[in-house]
Every structure is written in structure tokens, then in C-alpha cells.
């Protein structure tokens, strides 16, 4: 084989080591505890937009295990056990996500702050970015305001909430040509966000998009802002690249169980396999997840931004095609 060499120049791997050291210092200075949790678990996420790598049962095992798609569930069990503020730097795995800004095996920085809400965590993410990238300041845009400002679309009220309004289709077609026919409302918003809004954010510096539609809450709690129900969630974009996703965490075990059921129902609807529910996570929530906010940040993307790399391959020792 001729492609045995690393994907990244060695100098970038030195930058990677320096970044990991810098991140660990950042958190130890703030008394946030570093933890490790298992990569292979007996349960996994039912989120229909994420596809897990199952590992078939081998040896004495009677059931498959799953490579983690993020360390979220295990870290929440630590939080429920009273661990306090914690962070983790670990590998995460998502099937099918390969491209210039994706690698099916990637490195996540995930951290939780007990007693904080997502607004407080936004500030800390901005401080981390300032330390690593030298960025100055940041903007906060409610999801709804961003769509109205850039596309003249109101994601919360336009049309019948079950359907994609004709006005959205014409906005998308005027910018993108033909678009896929069979998208539901949230998938259509994802299309507009990723194809029409993200490119514009490219020269806006650090942008936090907050207050997502409640249908996109995932594991964030829902709150009221100016009379509208929104998800207490944020996405952080730097130079138009999605870098981090944070929640004011949903602590209620009943709502969490409902969310998982709804996720599995959506999987069924899309003819995807349903996933086993993490009963240990639900038990931890029943015991009591403290009020907290958490965020996951892609370290490969962070390093790519720092080094102005065109693709993640340039910052990974052996990217997916040669791993």
C-alpha cells in the first residue's frame, strides 16, 4: 500500500498535542474534573439523525455493544452520582458521517457545569474559543431572528406546523435549484440552515444560535421566551462552521423517557432500526440529575479552524480513508 503515511503533516500533530494540553489546563484552572467513560456501552442514542456503530456480541458476550456517539449518557450518570463539574476528551463514532468537515471517528470535548444554564455556558465556550483561536467577542442570535433576518422566513409560525410552507420551498429553490421532495419541516429547516445560513455566517466570527424550535430540542429543556416555547439549546458557529452544541439539560426523567420513545417512533417511521433505551440513564435521572448545562465541541474542527486547514484530514493522524 502506498498510502501508509499520516493524513496530517507532523507539524499539525504537534499543534494537536499542544491544543490538548491547553484544553486540559483551561479546565484544571477552573476546577473542572477530567473523567473517562466507556466507549462501548450496552445502550445507545435513539436520535434518528445519528447512526451508531454496533459491535456484534463476541466471546462470552450475549448481546451487542455500541460505540458511543458522544459521552453524554455516561457523563450524566456521573453527574447524578454527584461528580460535580466534569469534562472529557474522548473519541466518538457516527456511521456514515464522512466528508471534508466530518470523520466517522472523531474527537469530542464534552463538559458539564452544575447549577449553570445554557446562557452561562455560552460565555464559557466563548472564553475557550478566545483562548484557543484568539477570537474577540461573539454574537448571539435566536434561531427565529436569524431566519427572519437572512431568509425572511419565520420558522416558528409560517404555515401549518406539520408541513413545509410553499414560501420556504421558493426561497430554497431560488438559492439551491431543485431540492429534495420528501423533507419534513425540521429537515427542511436543516436544509436552509446548512445551505443558506451557514455560508453567510462565514464572516460573522463567533456566532451562538439559541432558542431553537421546540421540535429540535433533543435533550435540552423547553422554556418560554417572549411567550413562545423554545428549546434551551445553542449551536456555536465559528467562520460558518458548526463547532459546538450545548443544552440546558432536560432533567425530568418522564420527559426524557417520552423523548426517547418519540425518537424511536421517528426511527420506525424512517424504517431505521429502533435502539435499546438506556435504562441506567433513566434510573440516574430518577435518582436526580442536578440542574446543569452541557456542551460538546469537536476538537478536530477546532484544530482545523486554528490551523486554517481546508479539511479535517489535515489535522488527523489517519483520517477515515486510510485508517
Amino acid at each position, binding site marked *: 500500500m502506498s498510502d501508509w503515511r499520516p493524513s496530517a503533516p507532523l507539524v499539525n500533530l504537534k499543534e494537536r498535542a499542544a491544543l490538548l494540553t491547553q484544553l486540559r489546563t483551561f479546565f484544571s484552572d477552573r476546577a473542572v474534573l477530567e473523567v473517562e467513560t466507556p466507549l462501548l456501552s450496552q445502550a445507545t442514542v435513539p436520535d434518528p*439523525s*445519528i447512526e451508531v456503530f454496533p459491535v456484534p456480541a463476541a466471546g462470552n458476550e450475549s448481546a451487542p455493544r455500541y460505540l458511543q456517539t458522544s459521552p453524554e449518557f455516561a457523563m450524566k450518570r456521573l453527574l447524578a452520582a454527584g461528580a460535580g463539574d466534569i469534562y472529557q476528551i474522548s473519541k466518538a463514532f457516527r456511521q456514515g458521517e464522512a466528508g471534508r468537515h466530518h470523520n466517522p471517528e472523531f474527537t469530542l470535548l464534552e463538559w458539564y457545569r452544575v447549577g449553570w444554564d445554557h446562557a452561562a455556558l455560552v460565555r464559557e465556550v466563548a472564553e475557550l474559543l478566545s483562548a484557543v483561536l484568539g477570537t474577540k467577542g461573539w454574537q448571539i442570535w435566536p434561531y427565529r431572528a436569524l431566519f427572519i433576518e437572512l431568509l425572511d422566513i419565520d420558522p416558528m409560525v409560517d404555515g401549518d406546523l406539520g408541513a413545509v410552507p410553499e414560501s420556504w420551498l421558493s426561497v430554497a429553490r431560488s438559492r439551491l435549484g431543485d431540492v429534495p421532495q420528501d423533507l419534513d419541516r425540521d429537515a427542511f429547516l*436543516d*436544509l436552509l440552515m*446548512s445551505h443558506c445560513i451557514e455560508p453567510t455566517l462565514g464572516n460573522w466570527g463567533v456566532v451562538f444560535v439559541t432558542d431553537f424550535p421546540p421540535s429540535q430540542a433533543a435533550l435540552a429543556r423547553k422554556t418560554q421566551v417572549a411567550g413562545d416555547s423554545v428549546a434551551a439549546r445553542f*449551536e456555536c458557529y465559528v467562520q460558518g462552521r*458548526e463547532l459546538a452544541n450545548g443544552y440546558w439539560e432536560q432533567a425530568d426523567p418522564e420527559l426524557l423517557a417520552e423523548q426517547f420513545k418519540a425518537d424511536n417512533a421517528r426511527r420506525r417511521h424512517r424504517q431505521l432500526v429502533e435502539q435499546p433505551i438506556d435504562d441506567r440513564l433513566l434510573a440516574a435521572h430518577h435518582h436526580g440529575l442536578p440542574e446543569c448545562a452541557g456542551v460538546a465541541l469537536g476538537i478536530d474542527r477546532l484544530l482545523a479552524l486554528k490551523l486554517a486547514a481546508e479539511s479535517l484530514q489535515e489535522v488527523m493522524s489517519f483520517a477515515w480513508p486510510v485508517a
Partner: protein
Amino acid sequence: MPNFSTNEFKPGLKVMLDGEPCSILENEFVKPGKGQAFNRVKLRNLKSGRVWERTFKSGDTLEGADVMDVDLEYSYTDGEFWHFMDPSTYEQYGADRDAVGEAEKWLKEQERYEITLYNGSPLAVTPPNFIELEITETDPGLKGDTAQGGSKPATLSTGAVVRVPLFITEGEVIRVDTRTGEYVSRAGKG
């Protein structure tokens, strides 16, 4: 033809889109961390040469196009079709004016061309990057002008007109870059 899924879209893959054969140029995977995955794809329409951009939901499929590139030898034209031959099977292919297009001015007998076949018929003709052709007509160069790097038009055996240095004379064979239509050197000098 088999169907190809978005994760199989590689540059060079030939697929059918809106009933037209296309070649994939680029395929970018786009996905919000929590949300629908898409593939933003650039394709060249092999009939018109135009580049299309389309967004697909990841996992969507397109039918493969029965398109392949073959090396064929140019034989002759009857005015309506330009005839090419497979030198190993002697099979003949007639390309019409649309398929020959710009390549017409570089067609030389016994030279090999890359022919794109769609459902077995020529869709496009691509000349080799460099070709050697004889000059059939050019003004005599003026002595002493060679150091100035001046140039003059010269008509080649295929009818193409290229600019050549002043010292080149009628009857000489020159090497031409077919992509730019520029003179490269006298033949045989690399």
C-alpha cells in the same frame, strides 16, 4: 444500470439526472450535528457540458448512466458523421457534429481520441492533450525577428489556425496543445 447511493458518489461516477447522463465532479457531505444529512453534489451534464449543482438527502439514489470512455482511432468523415474505429476489434462508431464539437479541428487520421459512449453511441470526443500536425500555409518569416519572440498565424492540415514563431515555415510539423490551441514546439523536440 445499478442505482448508486449518495455515499457512493465519487468524482467520475456517471449517473442519470433529469434524464441526462452526468458525471459527478464533487460531492460534499453536509450535516448539522443534530439534524438531517445532505449531499451537495456538482455534476457535469455530459450532453451540454454544463455544470449542475444539486442537493440530495443523504441515502438518496440515482440510476447509473451507461457511459464509458474508450480510445478510438479517427478514420474519416462523410460530412455528416465522423467515423472512429476500435483498433483491436475494428468496430466502427459514427460521431455526429454535436459529439465531435470543438475536437473537429484536431482530427487527424490514425490518431487516437477518447470517445465517451452513451448507450453505445459517441457522446463526446476528446483529443489528446498534445498533437503533431503539419503546417499547410503560413507567411514566410522575416529574418532577424526571431529574438523578438514575434508570432504569425499558421494553418494546419486539419484546418486549425494557431500562432507560431516567425522562424517556422510551411511544411514543418509542429506540436500543439489542444486544450489551449497553442504552439508548443517543433515536432520531435518534446
